[in-house]
């Protein structure tokens, strides 16, 4: 009984940490412009719209976070093997991974932006100075929480995978969940804030991203401020729910029916999510659609 209670407590803690990780990951990727919407940041100068938006999408979010989280997990694991305190080991690993993220961000911004020089896009040194550290800070939060989740899975819950292997699995899942949930909000709602609300961006508007703020040119840090209100928490909820239900169904129901209890519980949870999704879809159709052609004056 005590094991189950500890297991549920750790599951709740891991879910909460994963929620923070998801929110920080999405905000980091939006400030650094690393998700799929970055195609528009790269495209804009080619269409004649130069800007001051950060641009570091050399790789997608999932492989990038796989690298950083696995690196942090690997270093933390090495320190743990040397007998270093677990909290210190996790911090050491995360700090190293964050520096790697900083180097990656700087070289990616310089490389991608310099490749646009023939379209008149300048490289802004003050953008590197001001934005890179902000992405590093968010990356630190995302990495340290994910590494802690992996550590809890390895030690308290007793998953057979070693810490670096768990880092590959959950680093990739973090990037996949964050980019899937957060990208549309950054792409449609922020980069194309000048387009109509409640409709997709017409393909003809591609590249015409919003480049000006209330005063002066738009900064990437403001993109993080904007998406942290919806895209970030939604991504956090997504990753938090994934981690929570993956652990919860196993810890609570694995002892029933020789292990099939966890499988059945998982199937029931999937069906419940499917019903909720259908409700959300029907709600959207009833309240927003169908689209009608505007009457010309």
């Amino acid at each position, binding site marked *: 009984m005590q094991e189950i209670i500890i297991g549920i407590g750790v599951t709740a803690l891991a879910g909460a940490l994963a929620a923070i990780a998801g929110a920080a990951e999405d905000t980091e990727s939006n400030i650094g412009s690393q998700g799929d919407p970055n195609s528009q940041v790269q495209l804009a100068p080619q269409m004649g719209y130069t800007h001051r938006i950060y641009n570091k999408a050399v790789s997608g979010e999932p492989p990038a976070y796989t690298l950083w989280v696995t690196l942090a997990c690997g270093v933390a694991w090495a320190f743990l093997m040397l007998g270093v305190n677990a909290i210190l080991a996790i911090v050491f690993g995360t700090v190293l991974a964050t520096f790697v993220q900083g180097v990656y961000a700087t070289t990616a911004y310089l490389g991608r932006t310099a490749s646009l020089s023939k379209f008149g896009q300048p490289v802004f040194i003050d953008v590197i100075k001001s934005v890179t550290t902000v992405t590093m800070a968010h990356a630190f939060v995302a990495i340290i929480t994910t590494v802690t989740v992996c550590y809890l899975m390895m030690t308290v819950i007793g*998953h057979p995978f070693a810490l670096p292997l768990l880092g590959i699995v959950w680093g990739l899942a973090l990037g996949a*969940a964050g980019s899937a949930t957060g990208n549309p909000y950054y792409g449609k709602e922020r980069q194309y804030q000048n387009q109509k609300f409640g409709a997709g961006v017409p393909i003809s508007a591609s590249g015409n991203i919003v480049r000006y703020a209330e005063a002066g040119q738009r900064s990437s840090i403001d993109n993080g401020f904007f998406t942290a209100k919806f895209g970030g928490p939604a991504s956090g909820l997504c990753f938090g729910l994934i981690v929570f239900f993956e652990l919860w169904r196993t810890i609570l129901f694995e002892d029933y029916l020789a292990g099939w209890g966890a499988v059945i519980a998982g199937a029931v949870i999937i069906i419940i999510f499917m019903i909720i999704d259908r409700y959300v879809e029907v709600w959207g159709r009833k309240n927003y659609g169908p689209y009608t052609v505007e009457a010309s004056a």
Partner: protein
Amino acid sequence: MSAIAAKPGANAGAFQPVPSVIAIVLAIILVVVAYFLGSAGILAGGAMPVLQTLCLIILGAALIAFGVHFVPVGGAPAAMGQAPGIATGVAMLATGAGLAGLFGGAWAAELGLGVALASGAIGGALMMAITCLMVNISYVFGMGIPAASGKVLKDPITGDLQAAYKSQGTEGHGLPFISYVGGVIGGLFGGLGGTLIYIELLNFYNVGLPALGFVGAEGINMLAVGLAGIFAIGMFLVIAVLSAYNITGTIEGPHDPKFKRFPRAIVAAILASAVCGLVAMLVVALF
């Protein structure tokens, strides 16, 4: 012929019999090589267990390749609400779901093959069910956009009309119910295939590592889990990327015309997994 002149014809993505037969023959040769390595004692366990391991690894890879085609991926256009699907890459999303499944399957490995495979499949499906739900919540509650498919007039499951809910100048947006179900099925197959590869490799290493003689009894299981996990993840990435090439960009799910391309990806996965599987087994070969 220049690259511009070489436009894809009407049969782009069509099944090509000659290369497929060559690929299958090469895969069979590799399986026969594994059989003889097993019978010669170079691969531990004997000829039949080695044959069974490689064949089940190939089956797992084929399941992954099939599953990737179900996952609705919209890439960059989806991030602007210009196309339906999830706004990320095919390979990465499918791998994320598959590895979440592998996590569950590896955890349940000691409970038997059936439970582990089912747990892996459900783990992958659960990851996709939550992700797809949050995508639709983002579109509907965050951006005020209803889900609409650009490839079919009616949702094949619910019968909902799609064209009227598509905003002007786009190919659709969000995840209609058929795409949602496709995502869950994709996660199911991905988790199942990934876990099958992992468990087969784990069993093989548990036999092969003691035969090498330099690993202590207490370290065998940890090393076997690590090796099997790394190779399973690596093979998952190989198959997911191959399938992503077959899809070329975006796919809405099982109702998308591109879905019919899956036999070609399965053939490629059979050959790629035969090569990768044999290499993974040769790691503990007794030369």
